[in-house]
């Protein structure tokens, strides 16, 4: 595994990941490679398993089979040559998870903390930084998302777009290697999605490794360097946007894109 842990190796390797909820298998042996410094967009119809895959990478769901390597290190489980899985100890899981930041569809800001408080929380309680240093770093992250003048506001005093930008700043505070986004604009009014997508675009240009589950096909096509189209728990198409969206299109993708065009919800390449 030494060759993948060099800084030039892939950020995330997903190998044969399956996820089962009771009798329902929602992911069937997913293989995916997320390259460092690029944006990968996971698209697909609802129920295709794209959010579940992302949540497995964030270790919010535990995959029932397969392995996930983050920066070369196994996340949660190691798999022996005979396929037997061993759960890793909690500190090791936390250490690997620390490389990952997560942004949720519902923002999930803590309502009893200010914007700055949300961003600084992990710096204070996990990293144990002194207040002053944590706040300086927190302010730097808020500046990055253009909200330094809202530091003292509570989430209830912010618009949805601003809340999501604070959530991005919070995810960035621990300086993760990889940022995961789970439908980051799906609960926003259309006029507020732009400000969030702009922040994400800027992060992509800065060379952040990102995995984005999105219905914003336009964003996926322009910012994504890598598109994975999931359908019924399998990766159906996987490649650069020109290849995935270019003609001739896979009939399932064609069908999926048509529902978007019907609703006029996205501009297509």
């Amino acid at each position: 595994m030494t060759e993948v842990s060099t800084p030039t190796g892939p950020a995330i390797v997903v190998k044969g990941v399956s996820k089962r909820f009771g009798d329902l298998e929602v992911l069937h042996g997913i293989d995916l490679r997320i390259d460092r410094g690029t944006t990968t967009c996971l698209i697909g119809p609802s129920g295709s398993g794209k959010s579940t895959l992302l949540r497995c990478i964030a270790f919010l769901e535990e995959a029932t089979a397969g392995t996930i390597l983050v920066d070369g290190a196994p996340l949660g489980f190691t798999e022996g040559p005979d396929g037997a899985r061993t759960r890793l100890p909690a500190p090791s899981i936390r250490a690997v998870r620390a490389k990952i930041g997560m942004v949720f569809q519902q923002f999930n800001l803590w309502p009893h903390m200010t914007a700055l408080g949300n961003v600084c929380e992990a710096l204070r309680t996990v990293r144990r930084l002194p207040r002053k240093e944590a706040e300086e770093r927190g302010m730097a992250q808020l500046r990055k998302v253009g909200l330094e003048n809202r530091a003292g506001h509570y989430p209830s005093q912010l618009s949805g777009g601003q809340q999501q930008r604070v959530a991005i700043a919070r995810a960035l505070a621990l300086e993760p290697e990889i940022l995961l986004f789970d439908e980051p604009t799906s609960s926003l009014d259309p006029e507020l999605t732009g400000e969030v997508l702009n922040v994400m675009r800027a992060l992509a240009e800065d060379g952040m490794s990102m995995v984005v589950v999105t219905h914003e096909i336009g964003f996926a096509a322009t910012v994504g360097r890598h598109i994975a189209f999931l359908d019924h728990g399998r990766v159906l198409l996987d490649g650069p946007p020109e290849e995935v969206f270019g003609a001739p299109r896979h009939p399932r993708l064609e069908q999926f894109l048509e529902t978007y065009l019907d609703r006029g919800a996205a501009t297509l390449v």
Partner: protein
Amino acid sequence: MLDFGLIIKQMPAILAAFGVTFGIWIVSMLLAAALGFLVAVARRFGPKPLDWLLRAYVEVFRGTPFLVQLFLLYFGGPYVGLSLEPIPVALLAMTVYGGAYFSEIFRAGFEAVPRGHVEAAECVGLTRAQILRRILVPEMTMLVLPLCVNMAIVLLKETAVLSIITVPELTLVIGVIGSQQYAFVESMFLLALFYWLLVELCGVLGRWSEAKLSRFRFAPS
């Protein structure tokens, strides 16, 4: 004609009884809230058998009248070697009774904290204890505050029941004065006034703290 003069003369005794009611109310409320919190945390994070045991406790003490619990503890206690003075019995009974209700309030409060808020905390590396302390408890508190004010009012009015085990609180003392002076209506009127004043005080404090916490309200999303 109502005549409050006879009762007013007994004011020092009435104020002393007011002090007893107030003291038992505040102390037992704090103890009940603490007990309820521990029960709620144990049921959420503890092993399954403990959850069943505590659930039985809650069911029993919510399912029987406070009057009966108090009687059993005071008159039945000596049979199992638990002979206590009226005031300690009062505090114990109120705490155990209130604790059952408080634990349900807190349990519902914990469950009402959105799952995603906990997931966000897990993602930035907070441990389970840190999530409880930094996320769950503060969010739960602001959700359950109105219910806690309600519970405080219920407990205050239950203190009147303590008169039957001769705790020298307001209902007992004013009742005795009323019958000695043949001023039943006046005494009951005064008694109602005292409870109502305390309930109002409670309501004012509740509204004040709710206003303080209102800026933390869950963000619309």
